[in-house]
């Protein structure tokens, strides 16, 4: 292959005997000058704290106590019999699973209906449904606290019209989880709706046209063409929703903490328990072990989701 100035182009053979022109050396120097300061920021602001989280999880470090010692996996083992941790873990699992199922199902239905039926004013509809995504969590949570209010909330009022007795939705241990889930589903539907909508729009119209000519009903073409082609997008949405579900904090903190920052909470999830254990009760060692559990759970779920998808694809 002869090309003008070919020596300047990166050659595929990366070896010690590769010729290094002055320009090539200049490019390497430029790249390093650009990347090293940024890498230094990553090293200080991300990598060091992450390594530190692992390290501290193996110690009995507490804020305010100077001396600490290495305790091995004791924190990890202790957590497994710690009631607060187990309750938070259970809540996080239910929260992530239920928000994922409801949010993705509703969002997918909306996107399918929008793409298959003759809908007037799709832009307006999408804007309205997306609105909760852009409004921040805290003001939205405040609105929902007001809707859920046990005495004057409109939810209890509406339910009283059909004869239900009033509930203290957010401060009752059996309903708080579901109340926060409903709020979160409302907030996130628009986000996944757009993701699915973009995915459906990317499917070539000719496929659907061909199915229509063959006499397939709208439902058949959705099941046989749209959904299989949408699979990578659905997988991606599942991974995103899992991560979002396990890392929510603000929703729980704002909606279910009592007044005057009273300790204790009707609903605890892993992120809240990490915060409380480490930064309210100062048990840094234990809190970091819990933080590492959170990390492992997320990695585990993400890898499992990708693996499951691959196995399903192999079947075809």
């Amino acid at each position, binding site marked *: 292959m002869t090309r003008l100035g070919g020596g300047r182009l990166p050659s595929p053979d990366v070896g010690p005997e590769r010729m290094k022109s002055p320009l090539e050396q200049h490019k390497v120097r430029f790249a390093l000058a*650009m990347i090293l300061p*940024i890498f230094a920021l990553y090293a200080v602001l991300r990598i060091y704290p992450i390594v530190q989280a692992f390290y501290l999880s193996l110690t009995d470090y507490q804020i305010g106590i100077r001396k600490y010692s290495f305790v091995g996996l004791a924190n990890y083992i202790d957590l497994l019999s710690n009631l607060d941790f187990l309750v938070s873990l259970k809540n996080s699992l239910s929260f992530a699973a239920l928000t994922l199922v409801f949010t993705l199902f509703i969002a997918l239905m909306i996107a399918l209906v929008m793409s298959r039926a003759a809908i007037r004013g799709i832009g307006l509809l999408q804007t309205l449904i997306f609105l909760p995504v852009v409004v921040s969590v805290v003001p939205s949570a405040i609105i929902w606290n007001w809707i859920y209010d046990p005495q004057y909330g409109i939810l209890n009022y509406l339910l009283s019209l059909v004869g239900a007795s009033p509930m203290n939705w957010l401060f009752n241990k059996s309903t708080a989880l579901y109340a926060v889930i409903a709020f979160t589903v409302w907030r996130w539907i628009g986000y996944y709706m757009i993701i699915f909508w973009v995915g459906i729009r990317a499917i070539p119209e000719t496929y659907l046209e061909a199915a229509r000519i063959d006499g397939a009903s709208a439902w058949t073409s959705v099941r046989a063409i749209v959904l299989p082609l949408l699979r990578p997008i659905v997988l991606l949405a599942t991974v995103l929703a899992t991560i979002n579900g396990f890392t929510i904090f603000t929703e729980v903190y704002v909606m279910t903490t009592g007044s005057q920052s009273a300790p204790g909470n009707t609903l605890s999830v892993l992120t809240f328990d990490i915060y409380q254990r480490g930064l309210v009760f100062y048990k840094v060692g234990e809190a970091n072990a819990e933080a590492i559990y959170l990390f492992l759970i997320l990695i585990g779920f993400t890898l499992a989701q990708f693996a499951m998808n691959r196995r399903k694809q192999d079947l075809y």
Partner: protein
Amino acid sequence: MKPLRTLRLSDAVWNLALYILALVMLFPFLWLLTTSLKQPQHIMAVPPTILPPVATLRNYLEVFRKANVPLLYFNTLRFALVSTLCIVLTSSVAGYVFAKYRFPLKNVIFVIMISTMMVPFQSYMIPLFLMMVKLRVVDRYLGLQLPYLVQAMGTFFMRQNFEAFPDVYLEAARIEGASEFAIMRRISLPNLQSAMGGLSIFVFASTWDNLIWPLIITNTAKNYVWQLGLAVFKQQYTVDYGQFTAAAMVVVAPVILFFVLFRTRIMSGITLTGIK
């Protein structure tokens, strides 16, 4: 000419269903607005009324009296804008270099940087806080800002975008004798403005929304950002719905206005940047 399609019955049902759903999605915001304009006795009226019988701005005046609204906006905007600027800049430069240059240990550096994306913030926030204690920047703007100078997802996103950028432009500029820095500044970065715009919206929205780090790092009201200020306000005036819905309105109104003005860009910025 396309034939005019008449609305079939099933389509009419779907239209109706979607518009009812959109109203349900919108209802909390309408309820927020009308509650914030009500007097206390009307807020607690049974049965509740949708519109305030007598509209009042009293709740808003109380919010402006009790909270330093301009300062809250200043703190929040400074945090969100500086984060956006820094993250977009570091992500674009790193993404460009990873996409277009070869240098020793490139893959190792890339994998280390991108793998931090897999670790949720909550998993390393405590060591990060302890670091800020050592640096003596707790309850200061610098402590709030420091963690938001880089973002692995942004770097990954910009690298993806730069990989699609043709090498010929760079080669042509090199033949003209442009320096590598000039090529980056005058050719590569300006050509990816739309990707950078998408990333900006994503970063701005997520910083604006951030509660957990401000909650950990700030203690005094003068350093509060909106999310924290609102959360504290809510804890202090738990029963005064008129006031805290007014406070929420003060935060929400500009966001909704911006969204209505730039809705398509914002929608694609928030969703597509997150999945690329």
